[in-house]
């Protein structure tokens, strides 16, 4: 049994459109006095929420050993094909016998989807909240293992953009370069 949907018959006032136009004008006028939402970026920095997907980092164990075992799950999962790993036998005794000799991420190719983070069986690669890491050359935007470990040191204890770090924030660009 078909349902008969009764369409709305516009009244005379509706057809005139003027009340609707007035209501529209009132909406925009109300916004005129609303508090604006802009964050004045270089001066103020947006503090990203938990789970924001920004610059990558490579985690370390408390004793300083890199967690990564160079299984290349991240590079296999990567849809942008931006992770390049050269594995090798680990120089540490005991435990995992493999570690990344080189670990490069091409940040210009990366789409920050977070698949690497999900694929990682060792919880070694993570995306941090850092979003301002622009640079001048393509080469500078390929971050290597040392850079990724340094990002870990910068972000392990607290949000990178909390007040304490803000003065340092402007220097991060160059310090994490290859």
């Amino acid at each position, binding site marked *: 049994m078909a349902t008969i949907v009764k369409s709305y018959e516009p009244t005379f006032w509706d057809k005139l459109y003027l009340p609707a*136009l007035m209501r*529209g004008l009132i*909406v*925009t*006028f109300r*916004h*005129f006095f609303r508090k*604006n939402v*802009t964050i004045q970026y270089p001066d103020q920095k947006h503090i990203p929420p938990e789970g924001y997907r920004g610059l990558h980092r490579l985690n370390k164990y408390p004793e300083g050993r890199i967690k990564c075992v160079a299984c290349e799950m991240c590079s296999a999962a990567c849809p942008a094909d931006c992770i390049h790993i050269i594995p090798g036998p680990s120089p540490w005794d005991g435990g995992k016998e493999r570690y990344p000799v080189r670990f490069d991420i091409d940040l210009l190719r990366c789409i920050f989807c977070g698949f690497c983070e999900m694929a990682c069986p060792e919880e070694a690669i993570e995306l941090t909240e850092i979003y301002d890491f622009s640079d001048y050359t393509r080469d500078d935007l390929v971050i290597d293992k040392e850079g990724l470990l340094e990002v870990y040191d910068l972000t392990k204890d607290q949000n990178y953009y909390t007040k304490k770090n803000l003065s340092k924030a402007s220097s991060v660009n160059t310090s994490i370069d290859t």
Partner: protein
Amino acid sequence: MDLLGFTIILVKVLVVFAATMLGVLVMIYAERRVSAFMQDRVGPNRVGPKGVLQPIADGIKFLMKEDLVPEKVDKPIFILAPAILLIPALMTFAVIPFGSSINLFGREIALQVADVNVGVLYILALTSISVYGIVLAGWSSNNKYSLLGGLRSSAQLISYELAMGLAVVSIILLAGSLRLNDIITDQQGSFFSWNIFRQPLAFLIFLIAVYAETNRLPFDLSEAEQELVGGYHTEYSSMKFAMFFMAEYANMITAAALTVTLFFGGWDVPLLDEGSLGLFGTLLSVLSFLLKMAFFLFLFIWVRWTFPRFRYDQLMRLGWKVMLPLALFNIFLTAGYLTLKALG
């Protein structure tokens, strides 16, 4: 004409010209700030305090930019078009009285560049010329988007000029004169003697037509950037583009001034005889004129960020099937009323 008279005229011309250009600068700033506020943003706030010097920075940027003339354009017309658009926009202001007359140097000086006895006609004529600027710009650019923009603009202007003219006719019928001063005098007295209350339908038609005449949203089909890149000014850059920009704002200022003159008693302050207060009264009248104008300029921006653009066929339908019959009906009504009144 004596030397003093000539000087006075010259000063008036310069003042009006400078004021219009200043108005354009203010409008550029205002448009960006107001639109930002309406979208919960900040807008330009870096150049100067609160960003007030932004229009200057924009101007410098336009001056420094490369003035590109594409190879296949019709050069003389291409260069002339922005001027054809800008000059009428600035000239229109000449007949608009912006304050009550003052007594200086032993003579009465009207605050108006030229008191033309066919002022309304003069304005209608000049706004018609400005459409040439757009059409020529579109045509000479040798670009399909520009041409489409120009064509749309001309069709739109012809359609809406008709309705606008007819709406003004009812005002002229009431005032019995084409002189703008007479129209203002006609509206003096009580608050309700303003034409907005005597001719609300004419005001509505006129207001809508004015938006179409100035190519402002919701009628900016000639430069609809989503469809036509930049419309008639697609190929323009640097100062030539800036001239289109300035013309648009100059047109807006003129249109606002005209609306105020025709429907809101011009410089008239209700329930007050400006003449009896001397210089203070004149200043008051100028202030009143500027305030009313400011409201309409704000309305221009306000409307822009509220209503979406018309589709082309909707625009034409509204012009020919709604506005024109309504305006004719309004004239008929006004004429009938006047006839009945004359018959007693």
